[in-house]
C-alpha cells in the first residue's frame, strides 16, 4: 500500500478492511480503466456524430465506410434511441463511472464489495442491452456501426472482469467456479460467435469484396 489516502470509510482494524473491500488484481484494475476509456471514447464519438447529423442531415459520419459498415443509417433508427434519447448518452454516463472506477482501482484505492457488485449488475444490464442492439443491428437494421461494435467488444470482457472482482472468493461454488474458470474461453467463444454471425449475415456483401 503506497497510497496513504483516507481510503476506507470505516477505518476499523486492517484485517476486517481487507475482507470488506474487494481484492482487485493489478491486471483487472487496468482492464477496467482501459475498458472505461475506450467505451467512453466510443460513446462520445457517437454522440458527437449524432449531433452533427442533427445539425446537418446530409452529414456523412466518419464511420460510414460502406453499405454494411455504416453508422449513419444505424444512428437514425428508433433502436438507436430506445429510451427517447440517443443510447450513446447512457454510454457516456456509464463508461464515465467505469473509467473513474478504473482510476481508483489502478491507484489501489480499495472499494467496498457492494460497490463492485453494483457495478457488476450495471454491467450485466449493459450486456443485456448490448445483445439486444446486436440482434437489432444484424437482423432488423441490417448494418453495422463501428463505434457501436467497439462498445459491444468492450462490454463483454468488462462484465467478466467486474463480476470476477465482485464475486471475489465466492467463486468456489460449483457453477460459478466453472464459469469463472472458463471465463476467458467463454469470452473468446462469444467473440467468435458474434464475428461468425456478422460474417454469415452479410456474406453477400463480404463475398463481393473478395
Amino acid at each position: 500500500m503506497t497510497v496513504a489516502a483516507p481510503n476506507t470509510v470505516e477505518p476499523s482494524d486492517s484485517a476486517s478492511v481487507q475482507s470488506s473491500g474487494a481484492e482487485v488484481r493489478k491486471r483487472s484494475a487496468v482492464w477496467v480503466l482501459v475498458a472505461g476509456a475506450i467505451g467512453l471514447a466510443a460513446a462520445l464519438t457517437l454522440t458527437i456524430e449524432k449531433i452533427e447529423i442533427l445539425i446537418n442531415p446530409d452529414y456523412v459520419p466518419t464511420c460510414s465506410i460502406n453499405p454494411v459498415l455504416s453508422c449513419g443509417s444505424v444512428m437514425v433508427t428508433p433502436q438507436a434511441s430506445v429510451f427517447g434519447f440517443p443510447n450513446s448518452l447512457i454510454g457516456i454516463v456509464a463508461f464515465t463511472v467505469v473509467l473513474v472506477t478504473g482510476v481508483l482501482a489502478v491507484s489501489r484505492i480499495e472499494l467496498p464489495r457492494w460497490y463492485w457488485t453494483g457495478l457488476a449488475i450495471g454491467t450485466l444490464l449493459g450486456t443485456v442491452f448490448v445483445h439486444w442492439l446486436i440482434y437489432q443491428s444484424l437482423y432488423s437494421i441490417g448494418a453495422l456501426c463501428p463505434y457501436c461494435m467497439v462498445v459491444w467488444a468492450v462490454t463483454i470482457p468488462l462484465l467478466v472482469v467486474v463480476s470476477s472482482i465482485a464475486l471475489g472468493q465466492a467463486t468456489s461454488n460449483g457453477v460459478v467456479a466453472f464459469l469463472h474458470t472458463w471465463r476467458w474461453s467463454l469470452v473468446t467463444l462469444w467473440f467468435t460467435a458474434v464475428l461468425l454471425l456478422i460474417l454469415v449475415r452479410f456474406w453477400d456483401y463480404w463475398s463481393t469484396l473478395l
Partner: protein
Amino acid sequence: MAAKQKYDLRAADRKRNRAVQIGLTAIVVIFAVVLVLYIVMSADEKPTAGEVDSIRVTSSKLIKKEGTDEPKAVLSLYEDFLCPACGNFEKQFGPTINKLIDTGAVAADYYMVSILDRQGQGYSTRASNAAYCVSRESTDAFRRFHAQLYAQQPQEGVGPFPDNARLIEIARQAGAGGTVPECIEKGTFADMAEGLAKATDVNSTPTIRINGEDYNPTTPDALIAKIQEIVGTVPELAGPAPTRAPEPTPPAPGAPAPAP
C-alpha cells in the same frame, strides 16, 4: 516460506490448466470458424431450384420508360439449348433480336431453361448452367456463347453431346475465362436451370414474352413491328438485319488455351 512454496505449486498447476484451456478453446474456435466458412462458401451463390434468374442483355441506347431506369420493352426468351425449335428460332430470329437489342429497342431477358435432359444425357442442364456462368463473367461473352451453342447444336436424342470440357472451351472462345470453368464444372446454376421452366410457368420452348405477355412470333418483321408499337419508331431498325449480329472476335480456335 511454506505458503510461498504452496503458491508456486499451484502456479505450476494453473499454468498447465491454462494451457489446456487455451488449447480446448482454440480447437472449438477453429472448428466453428472452419465449419461456418465451409457452409457459407459452399452455399455461396448457388441458386436453388425454384429461383428465377434471367440473363439480361441490353445496349447503352436502351429506350427506357420516362423518368425511370425500367426498359420500355422487355423481350423474354425461354429457350432450351437442345430444343430443335429453339435452334430454328435462333436461326430465323437471332439476327433480328440482336438488332433489337443493339438499337436499344428492347432489353432481352434470356431464361435458359432445361427441359430436355432425358433426350440429351443432361446436356440441357449443363449448357444452361454454362450459359449462366458465362453471363456472370460478361454479357457479350454470353451472346457469343449462346450463338455458338446453337450453331453447333447437337441433334436431340442422338448427340454427340458436348461435355463440360467442350463447353468450357466454347466459353473460352466466346471470351469468358476467370472462374467460368470452375462454375461450369461445379454446376453452380444447375439446380436453378432444372427448376427454371416450372418456376417461370413455361412448358414449351421457345416461349417468347413481351413485357410478360406471351407472344407468338411469326416473322422477324412482325416482331419488329410489335416492338415498335411499344417503344415507338426506331429508325435504325429499318435497315436489313445483320446476318450474324455483333461480330464476335473470339480468339482463333486453334490458339493455345491460356493457362488457367
